[in-house]
Structures are given as structure tokens and as C-alpha cells.
């Protein structure tokens, strides 16, 4: 098996404003993000040799990309739940690494607000057939499926509910602060701990501000060979690892799964670190965009990804380790908390922030001298999931 590290690079990215884009359709979002990426890479649509689009609900097949009017090139739609955007980028990157094409496009889009419903539509059982199933799954919402983690985390680490809520609140407050510095975020308001803990409960102990928003958005990356990257721009971002790690419902079926960690996150991140040559993520990773669909998950991710010791995420939250000024800033753009979670777009939106940070172009959110950045998604939930863990850097 050959190493994939540093074989391909990102030379252009685009990202729409995320939010309730009532006046924009899927096609608008795709064009908006793609043309920003073309311009950023200094290319035109005719330079694209192959494309992948990731979307869960907003289109079937790569014909979803027709608004771009790419002319008769290979294109494919991919879907891998919340990791869909990252999956599109993985496919484009692997095609370039394989030497089949030199310039590939990865598009992620989701228009959630056209569903007319509040929250995400989903199968009753993660992984079950949505077109028709036996209907035996519990009919709960996504927040409930993550509340299991909080209930169990508080239980196992003997955290009183009120303490636990304040602890989780710090994550929402941090992400909203970051979002307030980002004109592309859906939510750009600061929050206080009191606002978070006093918000209406959605699925105890998770309240309104422990949950990410529901938004529309798209993000796009232009991928090319690492050895060609500098022809496009002086500061390409090199891909070290694109990891997808998928569970088989072990957590939902086996009693030895503890619901205070997610095995897919643990194994997926270790696989990514190995591929990228990262030995100590806490000191080597400069910035991370992780899947904060719910505050409890961001906390568990700190431990799963090896940023915090098992059971000690609390110490790091309280020390401010993951704030913009901390030693390992997490969700510097505001995270899913402020961008919502248009499923197909999220992975590429995260990569957009890491890309800008590594280029030193993140404006008021810029962290000091970043070298390695990480993006992470978890599709599914504590019972089973699809984990995506990607590492990129500004040096080969």
C-alpha cells in the first residue's frame, strides 16, 4: 500500500454564506461556491476534468451539478451521511492521486430549509432503507440520539446535571464567539453561559443552544496534483490524510459500548494520524474543525481524537485550550453551531476554514502560525456512525 500523504493539494476553495437562504436554490448555492473556488484557483470551469458532488437530500446523481454547465466530463454524486462533503473531497483527491485526472472538483451542497419541516429528516434507524422499512426504529430526533451520550457521560463521571450543563454551555459560547467573527456564519451573535443554560430544553440535558442550527449552504474545493499545485498558487494546502471509518452498529447492539465515547471517532482519528505521521495530536495539530452537531459531541470528540485525556475534557474546556487563543483552537469559524449542518456541505465548509487559516487568511479569527489542520465529521450517532477525519498542512 502506497502512502497517500502529500500526493494532492487544494488550490482553490469557495464557500457560500450559510443560513436560511430562502431566495437561493441548490443551483445558486453550487454556482456561488464553485465560482469562488474557480477564481481562488485562478481557473475556469473548462479546466475541471472530473467532479464529485456530495449531497444527502438535495439531489440525485451528478446531474445535480448541471447548473455549472461542465461539459461532458466524468461526474458522480456521493452520499455518506454527515461525512458526505468530506466524501466528495476524498473521491476527487483519490482520482487525482491515482493519476487519472489532474484537476478535480469536490462540491458539497445541502438545502435543508426547502423541506418545510423543522430539523432533519432521517431514517428511524441509522443506516436503514429510507424508501421503505419495517418502521421498528424509535422515532426520536437527532438531539435525542446524542442526549444518550450526555446522560451517560454525566452518570459515569459523576457530574451533576447543573454542572454538566454549564460545562457544555462553554462550548456553545466559544463557538458563538468564533461565529461572531465570521461573515459567512449563519449565526453571528455572541452567547452567554446563562443564555445557554436557561434556553428551552430539546432533549435533556441538551437545550436549544447545545444543538446546531438548520441551514443551507455549499462549499467547493479544487484539487490537483501536489507537484502541479504551485502552478496555480504560491500557498497550496497539501493533503496528508483523508480517512473514512464506518461502524457496523456495534454501539447499538453490544453491551460493551459505553456511550461515553464513539469508537468510530477513536479509530478514525488514529488511522488519520498514522497516515499523516502525527504522533501527538494535542501538540502537532494547530487547528481543528470538529463535528459539533451537539455540544456533548464536541466534548467527547476532544477525548476521542486524543486532544484531551479520557474523562478529562472538562479540564481543557475550563482552561480555554480550545478557544481562539488556546493552544489547540477548535471550530474557529463557529462550527456547526454557527453554520448549521447542511449535511453535504459541512465537511467542505470545515475544510474551507482550515484552508484559509493555513494560508493566514482567516481575518479576525486567524490563529498564530498554524501548520497542520484537521477536519472531522461524524454521521449517525452513538449507536453507529460514519467518521471522517482529514488532515492537511501548508507544507509538504
Amino acid at each position, binding site marked *: 500500500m502506497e502512502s497517500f500523504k502529500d500526493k494532492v493539494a487544494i488550490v482553490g476553495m469557495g464557500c457560500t454564506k450559510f443560513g436560511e437562504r430562502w431566495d437561493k436554490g441548490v443551483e445558486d448555492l453550487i454556482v456561488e461556491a464553485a465560482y469562488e473556488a474557480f477564481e481562488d484557483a485562478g481557473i475556469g470551469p473548462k479546466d475541471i476534468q472530473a467532479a464529485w458532488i456530495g449531497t444527502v437530500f438535495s439531489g440525485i446523481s451528478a446531474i445535480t451539478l448541471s447548473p455549472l454547465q461542465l461539459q461532458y466530463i466524468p461526474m458522480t454524486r456521493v452520499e455518506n451521511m454527515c461525512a458526505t462533503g468530506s466524501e466528495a473531497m476524498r473521491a476527487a483527491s483519490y482520482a487525482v492521486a491515482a493519476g487519472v485526472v489532474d484537476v478535480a472538483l469536490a462540491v458539497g451542497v445541502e438545502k435543508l430549509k426547502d423541506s418545510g419541516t423543522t430539523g432533519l429528516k432521517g431514517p428511524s434507524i441509522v443506516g436503514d432503507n429510507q424508501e*421503505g422499512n*419495517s418502521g421498528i426504529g424509535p422515532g426520536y430526533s437527532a438531539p435525542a440520539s446524542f442526549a444518550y451520550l450526555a446522560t451517560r457521560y454525566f452518570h459515569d463521571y459523576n457530574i451533576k446535571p447543573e454542572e454538566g450543563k454549564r460545562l457544555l454551555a462553554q462550548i456553545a459560547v466559544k463557538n458563538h464567539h468564533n461565529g461572531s467573527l465570521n461573515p459567512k456564519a449563519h449565526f453571528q451573535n455572541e452567547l452567554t453561559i446563562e443564555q445557554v443554560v436557561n434556553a428551552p430544553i430539546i432533549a435533556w440535558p441538551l437545550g436549544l443552544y447545545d444543538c446546531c442550527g438548520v441551514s443551507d449552504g455549499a462549499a467547493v474545493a479544487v484539487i490537483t496534483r501536489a507537484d502541479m499545485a504551485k502552478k496555480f498558487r504560491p500557498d497550496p494546502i497539501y493533503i496528508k490524510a483523508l480517512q473514512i471509518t464506518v461502524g457496523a452498529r456495534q454501539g447499538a447492539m453490544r453491551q460493551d459500548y459505553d*456511550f461515553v465515547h464513539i469508537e468510530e471517532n477513536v479509530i478514525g482519528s488514529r488511522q488519520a494520524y498514522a497516515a499523516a505521521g502525527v504522533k501527538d495530536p494535542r501538540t502537532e495539530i494547530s487547528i481543528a474543525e470538529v463535528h459539533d452537531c451537539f455540544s456533548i459531541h464536541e466534548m467527547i470528540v476532544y477525548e476521542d481524537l486524543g486532544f484531551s485525556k479520557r474523562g478529562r475534557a472538562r479540564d481543557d474546556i475550563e482552561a480555554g485550550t480550545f478557544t481562539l487563543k488556546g493552544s489547540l483552537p477548535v471550530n474557529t469559524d463557529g462550527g456547526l453551531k454557527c453554520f448549521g449542518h447542511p449535511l453535504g456541505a459541512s465537511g467542505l465548509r470545515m475544510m474551507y476554514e482550515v484552508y484559509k487559516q493555513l494560508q493566514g487568511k482567516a481575518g479576525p479569527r486567524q490563529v498564530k502560525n498554524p501548520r497542520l489542520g484537521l477536519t472531522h465529521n461524524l454521521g449517525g450517532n452513538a449507536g453507529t456512525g460514519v467518521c471522517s477525519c482529514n488532515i492537511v498542512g501548508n507544507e509538504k
Partner: protein
Amino acid sequence: MAGITSFGAYVPIYRLNREEIGKMWGGRNMGGAKAVAGYDEDTITMAVAAALDCVIRGGGADGLFLATTTAPYREKLSAAIVASGADLQEECRVADFTDSLRAGTAALKAALDAVVAGSAKKVMVVAADTRQGAVKGALEQTLGDGAVALNVGSEKVIAEVEGSYSIFNDFTDIWRTDEDKFPRSAEGRFIDEVGYFPTMQSAVNGLLKKYKLNLGDFASIVYYASDARQHAALARRLKLEKSQVQDPLYNDIGNTGSAAALLMLAAALEKASPGDRILFVGYGDGADAFVLRATDEIKKFKKRPVISSQLAGKMAISYGQYLTWRGLVPLEASTLPERSALSLQSRWRERKAIFALYGAKCKKCGAPQFSQIGQAARVCVNCQAKDEFEPYKFSDKKATLFSYAIDQLQPSLNPPGVNGVVDFEGGGRIICELTDCDIDKVRVGMPVEMTFRKMFFSRGVHNYFWKARPVSD
């Protein structure tokens, strides 16, 4: 001699105090409470619960007759659903007895005849009803929900049926047309004086004459009546001793329709001593009267007090909850996403999992498992052995709540939704809904048991599955 070999009962934990109804409409109330099927219960789920209670204490059967006037389908055999839920053997005759409050005793008589004739060894008679009275009416107060199951056989009989006597009388007292949601009722005095009293007296007298018995020969007299007043009035007409008259349970449960008389009979059997004679009468366009006699076997029968214990864990509900659960008021349309569509094909493939909560146990590593995607596991979640499984039933296993989630967004007629990660004693885990919970008492480590419930209605199909509930005692 043929007779009853086992019995079980099921009364929902929810009670609507009649005072609530009185308060709502500003009228008189009859006192006491009526049992109300939970938002996720119906005739079928209650029948399954009663049948399982009967199976636990007296084993399965090779026949099942379901008596009800409130079957969820106009055309489809409800008894087959109940037999599936009770996990009876496939070679089993099943039939619905319906359209009459006397369906329960009609099914009992048919079961006895089948056993005596030798066409079945043991027939389970299950009766369940969820009749609703129109709002503000007398029946709204009197009608309650409940289910009962009796095994009829000729071995290990706990109460022999010594004889029976039936009459018919086409009399329009309480009825529903095929379009009525609520029963209609004739004028009360007319019902009593022309219908109910003469019919019951004629059936009782006919039975006593046929078997040369007197009312004094009976330790217990069990009979149907529309309500507590009518029940007491018949006792006076027949000059029954107070000690003989079985409490009709109308104060605690209400009139459970085709299940009512049999539920009272189960309560009488709970108290019966060997040698006790019981006079038992079901009513509806005539009457079926029976002479039963408790045998020595009744001493060995596990007489966990079925009905009295079920009266203990009750939870009071509001009139608003009642209206909502029973679909008596239009509700605001939800803006939450709809569930994905139901597939009849998928439900058919997964029928063993759906109706009796069968999973699989790996023959290689011994791990019990329930996949929730597909009926049968093909590759072991623990050791990845392929196709090395034997069927493994989870519905009767004790379990513990490993974690839970109380969901304000879950579409439910009784919000918030309660869900759990449930670990079974002996291995295996399921993530499922919880029901019959006091949400303030839900905690990690809580003992739970599985219960057959209605999940939702989709494309004309009632979708049943199992939920966990706190262990009542």
C-alpha cells in the same frame, strides 16, 4: 372435564378520574376512574399483553379466539396478530369473535366445545376492548379499556366448566352501526325492564334448572352489566348475597366491553378455593351462562394477583390527554419531519422480530444480538461468524436501562418522547422507545421489561413493535 387451565389479564396503567370528566363538562360524575389505553395501546396490544400473562402462567395453546368489538381492522384477522405477539405455534387455529359484547363468552363456549370435541387441545380465549363513549355522555364515564386471556383445556384444569346455558334475544339496547364511532343507547328504563333484567333472569334460571342448582350453591356470582348501577340492581332482583357478588371492577377500570365479564371472572378465580362454584354470565342480545367449579389444581396455579397488582401502578391523566390519545380532537399538524414510509415487504421479512422480538444468538461465540436492520443477523456483531445463528427471543428477557433520552421534538401523542438504550440480561442490546414512564423517575440502571405497542399508523397499516417500560413492582 374441560375447563380453564390458566388466565392472565391486562389493564392499562392510565386512569381518567370521572371527576375530571365532571369538571370538564360541569355535570355529575359517577365517581371512581376508568382505565384508559395509553396513546400507544389498542385492542391488539392489550390482548397481546393479557395473552402473554396467560402464557407465562399456563403455557401456550393450539388455538386462539379473540373477542372484541374494537378490532383495528375491518377486514384482517386480529387474532392472528395476537397469536403472533404471544408467539404461539404456527399450527394453531385462530378466529375473531366480534360485533357483540357477548363475543367473550361466545368465544369461551366455542373454545370449550373445541376442547371437548378434541379438535384442539388448548384454546386461548382473549377478550379486549377499547370502546369510546361520545363526549359528555354517560358511556364516556362508564367505558374503560382492558383485556383478559383464559386458556381452555382438559389437563391441569383449575376451574372445570360443569355446564352452560345460552339464550338469544334480538334486543336493541346498545349498538353501533358500521359508521358509528360511539355506541348508541336506547332509553335506560326500557333497556333494564324489557331487555337486560328479563334476559339475565331467564339465563340464570334456565341454567339453575338445567343443572338442578340453587343460587346458594355458588361461592361467587360473576355477570356483565352496563355499569355499576345496573350491576347492583340485578343483584337485588336476584336477591344475591353481597359476599357472592364479584366486584364488576367498574369503579377502578370501567366497563371493558367484551372483556368485562371475563375480567371479572379472572378476578373471581384469583380468590377461588378448591370446590368453589362460580356462576358466570355474559350478556348481549341474549346471554351465555356457565357453571364453573374450582379444582385442587387452583392451589398450585401461580396466583400472582393479576388484576389487583395491575390496579396498583396506575397513573392519572388529564381530560386533555384522554381526548388527544383517543383522537377525539383535531390536533395541529406537525412541522417535524415525517417518518420514512412503511414497507409491507420489509415488515413481512422481519415478522419474527416485529411480533415476538426475535433476534439471534451466535452459535460460535454465544452472543445474543438484535440487529434492527433486517430480521435475521447474518454476520455476528461480536465474532463476525457468518450464518451461525439460532433464533433468540428477547421479548421475555429482563433488561436494564443503560442510557436514556427524553425528546421534546419526538412526534408523540404523549410528549415528550422517552427513549432508551436497553441491555438485556444474558446479553444483547436494543435502542427503543420507552413507554408508561413517569419521566421524573427515569434513571440509568432502571430495570425495564418489553411490552408490545403500537408505533404509528402508516398507509392504512397499524405498525406494532416493542417498547421498554419500567418494571412495575
